[in-house]
Every structure is written in structure tokens, then in C-alpha cells.
């Protein structure tokens, strides 16, 4: 019993995920089905991949608002440059664009000391403008069908996109929990001054995390474009908000210092399962927004009420 109470306090979002699974399984005959679960994983992978990187940045006490625009830029480059560079070359350029935006965000935040919120807000607006200039507001189409075939491909009847997401989630969890860099993430987020005095090079450390989230946002955008065999200039609109919502649902504090990949995974799945289940139940998508908004506040309330009282946040 104590363990269950502990679990509710530590990972309230997973309780919500379980409740959702039970609820939708009972109310829709199509929900509890292996195919549908891989469906949900593919749908979750887009926000999910970004959320992995965002968890690092947010535990650091920073935030990255430019991820949605990065999704669009990377996807547009990866599709638009295929005729000149081939698929591999275009995808490489797309991934590089994410790394560079991340690096730019990180360096500006580090060297100027301007708050990451403002730096990445500027990047969000600027990069979206760049996308419109590059694409001329048109969507691009991948003429090589191999590109969209990849998005639809499966290994052992599990979609490749879902596999990539699961794999990277495990890697991110291991890095955050068992490496020096991972421990430094918490140290820097918990108390920046103390971390500095303990010999952590805070600036370069945060830079690495910005590069990580930039890379993952680009990857997410490219994988999304393989699902469509195309890219559109409006791709990734509001994704920064959904990503932050997922991470916060997972128990990561906006103030930094606390959070976990397991929690983030729960947050990502909560959003994806709600959307999927509501679609299966034919509930208009607006209700999903109301429910998610309420859950967000409840989760933060539970966090404040129980975890903070004891001076400890959601465990890693």
C-alpha cells in the first residue's frame, strides 16, 4: 500500500496513463489491440523525441521554445534538398540544421547571459521566418518513394518510427541516470552557483543540452516528414507547447533540478493515448485540450502538495 502511495507521489502521470488505458479499453472495442499500441507509439514519437531532449534542458533550469520551428526547418531541408544531395545528404543537412540551431541557442544563452526563454523565443520566430523564406511557403514532396516507405516500414511488425523512439528513450534514460553528464544536469539545475563551485563548467554543459534538443527536434521533424513523404512550412506549429506540457506532466519542474525520462515518457504517452482514445470514441478534439489542461494542473498540484513538502521532487 505504501508503495502505491509512493508511486502516486513520485509518478502521478503513470497512474493517469494506466487509468486511461483501462478506461479506453472498456469503452472502445478497437483500443486494446497490438496494432493500436504501435499506432500510439508512432503518434507519440514526434513529440516524444523532442521531449527527451527537452527534459535535459528543463532539468537544467532552461527551456527551448524553438523546437517547433526546428522541426519545420529540418523537415523542409531533408525533403527539399533530396533532388540535389540525395536522401542521405539531405537528411544529414537537416540534422545539422538542428544541431546548429541548438548550438546557437546555447552559445547565445551562455555568452550573453540572456534568459533561455527569450533567446529561444527569438529563435522560434526567426527560424520560422527562415522556413518561409526557404520554402517560399510551399510544401515539398519527396519524389523518391524510398523516403516515405521508410516512414511506413516495420521490423518484426513494429513500426520503425516506434522502435527509434523506444531505443532513444532508453539511451536518454541511461545517460541521465548513470553518467557524469546526467548527474551534472541535476546539479546545474538544482543550484547553478554550487555546481560552478564544484567545478562543473556550466556554460559548455548547457550548450551540450541545447545541441541535444536541437538534434532531437530535427530528427523528429525528419521522421515526421517520412510519414508524409513531404514537408509543409507550417509543420511543428505549437510543438514547443506540447513538448513542454509532456515534460511537465512527467514531473519535471520548470525551475529545474528535478525530473526524469520515465516521467517524460509517461507525459508523452498520456497525451498520445488521450488523443488516440478520443478519436476512437469520436470525441471532438477540443475536449482533449480541456482534459489535458486539467490534468496538467492536477499533476502540478500533487507535485507541490506531496513531493515539495518532503524536499524532494520526482525521482530520476
Amino acid at each position, binding site marked *: 500500500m505504501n508503495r502505491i502511495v509512493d508511486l502516486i507521489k513520485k509518478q502521478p502521470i503513470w497512474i493517469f496513463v494506466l487509468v486511461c488505458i483501462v478506461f479506453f479499453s472498456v469503452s472502445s*472495442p*478497437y483500443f486494446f*489491440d497490438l*496494432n*493500436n499500441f504501435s*499506432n500510439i507509439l*508512432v*503518434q507519440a514519437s*514526434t513529440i516524444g523525441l523532442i521531449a527527451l531532449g527537452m527534459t535535459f534542458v528543463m532539468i537544467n533550469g532552461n527551456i527551448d521554445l524553438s523546437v517547433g520551428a526546428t522541426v519545420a526547418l529540418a523537415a523542409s531541408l531533408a525533403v527539399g534538398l533530396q533532388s540535389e544531395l540525395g536522401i542521405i545528404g539531405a537528411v544529414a543537412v537537416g540534422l545539422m540544421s538542428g544541431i546548429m540551431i541548438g548550438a546557437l541557442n546555447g552559445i547565445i544563452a551562455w555568452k550573453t547571459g540572456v534568459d533561455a526563454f527569450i533567446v529561444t523565443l527569438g529563435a522560434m520566430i526567426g527560424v520560422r521566418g527562415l522556413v518561409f523564406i526557404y520554402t517560399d511557403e*510551399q*510544401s515539398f*514532396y519527396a519524389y523518391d518513394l524510398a523516403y*516515405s516507405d521508410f*516512414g*511506413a516500414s516495420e521490423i518484426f511488425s513494429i513500426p520503425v518510427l516506434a522502435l527509434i523512439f523506444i531505443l532513444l528513450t532508453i539511451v536518454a534514460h541511461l545517460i541521465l541516470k548513470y553518467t557524469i553528464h546526467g548527474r551534472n544536469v541535476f546539479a546545474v539545475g538544482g543550484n547553478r552557483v554550487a555546481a560552478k563551485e564544484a567545478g562543473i563548467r556550466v556554460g559548455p554543459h548547457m550548450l551540450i543540452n541545447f545541441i541535444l534538443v536541437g538534434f532531437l527536434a530535427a530528427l523528429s521533424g525528419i521522421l*515526421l516528414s517520412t*510519414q*508524409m*513523404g*513531404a*514537408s*509543409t512550412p*507550417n*509543420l511543428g*506549429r505549437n510543438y514547443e507547447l506540447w513538448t513542454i506540457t509532456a515534460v511537465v506532466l512527467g514531473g519535471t519542474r520548470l525551475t529545474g533540478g528535478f525530473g526524469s525520462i520515465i516521467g517524460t515518457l509517461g507525459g508523452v504517452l498520456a497525451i498520445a493515448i488521450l*488523443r*488516440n482514445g478520443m*478519436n*476512437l470514441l*469520436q470525441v*471532438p*478534439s477540443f475536449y482533449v485540450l480541456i482534459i489535458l489542461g486539467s490534468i496538467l494542473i492536477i499533476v502540478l498540484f500533487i507535485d507541490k502538495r506531496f513531493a515539495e513538502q518532503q524536499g524532494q521532487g520526482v525521482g530520476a
Partner: protein
Amino acid sequence: MKVQISSIRTIRSFGKTSLIAGSLALGLSSMAQAETFRIGITQNNVGVDSYQTTYEQAFEEAAEAADNVDAVVLDAGGDVARQISQVRDLIQQQVDVIIIWPTDGQAVVPAVKRAKDAGIPVVVTNSNIAEAGQPLIASFSGPNNIQQGAYAAEMMCDQLGGKGDIVQITGQPGYTTAIERQKGFEDRLPEVCPDVTILDSQPGDWNREKAQRTMEGFLTRYDNIDGVYAADDNMGVGALNAAKSEDRADEIIFIGATNFAVGYEAMERGEYHGSVYQSPAEDARNALNIAIAVAKGEEVEKMSYFDTPKITRENMDEFEKPVF
């Protein structure tokens, strides 16, 4: 081109209370036809404009009225990624037909392919998808843009009395709708009125301000303009505004290829002369009917157009003011 939908999958009956109630209300005759079709629709962006909002209401009402339809109505909110997710969810539910109002004509093609591979026929509504997707769909339901352009040519011819010099303001370059409305007009005009000359054609990009600037250019360049053909009323009214500020509106006939509320109002004031009436409710009902026919395994036209009649000052009383 005719398309035969070969596989009708059997329908699972869940004993829906609504179905029973509906059947009872309609009497015994419908009891014989117990088969219910589950039709899923993913719309582009309901709420962004009143055309789409009216479309959704009409679709839901029509689905309610049909006693053999169980509709799953989803909205992609203009987001291609979400529309693709919704198509996946509709496939998962094994609906009998998926209707898709593309958020993007090209990006949805793989999703359409996925549905077809899963044995679910797809009906595209309102705006067609890219060429690559054409072999994958059961039918396209929507307005016939070529016909709309041709109707505009006929009205222009009538109003000018068979003679004159006109200019054309086209939609956004590269858009199928724009290309087709231009083609329909340009092909039909010489057939009905060989003496009407098109002096110039410039894009207005579906934008009223852009069309106004385009028209200002025409007015400077040409001393005599007898008529303006715009690919929709939004641009037509832009052209009208330009002509009014030059005091040349009275000598010009304005014809659009799709009637908007602004065009309807200008027509009431007597400043605008003709357009083509496209009803969102008709659009929705046509899509639903085609989808039902496809679900039944009936043969449907690959291009299933709904009627878009001419509207002029003479007959405008028969039409309600467009909601968009």
C-alpha cells in the same frame, strides 16, 4: 472514368440504440436494410472559416438523417501530422470509408495509401490530392473548377453582349483550383464569344489587396476595360474597389468564379454582375452520398462533382447570402 470498389467488408453490428430508434421512426421498410455503414471523415480545419464550419454542420445533419450511417467526424485543425494520425485511428477502427479533406494535397498521399492498403476506400472531399494519389482514391467529391470557370465565361459573354476587352485576375499560381478556373474560362470564352478579347492575365493570389493592386496596374495600362474576370469574388471585389477609386467601375462588368459574401453584397448594391454559387452544405452532402455509395460497393464516378449554379443580379433572390 468508373471505379468499382470490389471489397465491401462485413459490418459488425453493435446494436446501436440510435440505429434502432432511427429504424423504428422510419417504419418497417428500413428494418430490412439493417446494414450500417461506418464513415469516418477527417476535415481540414473546422472553425478557421465559416465555409468549413457550415460544411461540418451539414455533414453531421446529413449523417444523422441517413438511417444507415454511423459517422466518425474528426478535425485535423489544419495540421498535416494530426490528419495523418487521424487516418491511422480511422484505419484502426476499421471504418468502411474514409473521407479526407486534405490539409495538404501532397503530404497526405502516403496516409491515403496506408488506408487503401488496409482495404479501406478513400473519398477526397472539396480539394483534390496530388496526381500521385489519384490511383489510390475511390472518388473525388467537390466543385468542378473547370465548369465554374466556364460558367463565368458564359456570364461574361451575356453581360457584355458578345463584344469587348477584358482582363483576368487568377488565383495563386501553382494551385490546381487556380489553374482549372483559368482553363475553364479561357476554353469556354472563345466558344461563346469569339469577339471578346482577354487583354491580360495576372495573379491575385486569392488575396483582395493583391487583386486590387493588380487591377490598379491594369487600369493604368489599358484605357478601355469592359470586363474583369476574377477567380473568386474576394479578388473580384478587390478589382471593383480599384476601379471605384478611379471612377471607372460603372463602365466595367465584374464576374467571379466563386461567390463570397462580399461579392453577394456588392451584387445587391448593383456593382457586381455575376458569380458561381458554391454551397458548403451541398459540398458536404455530396461527399457523404458518394461515401455511402462506395461503402455499398456501387460504381461511382472518379470525379463526383456537385452542382454549382450561376448567380447573377436577376436570380440572386433564390440563394442565401454565402456564409464565407
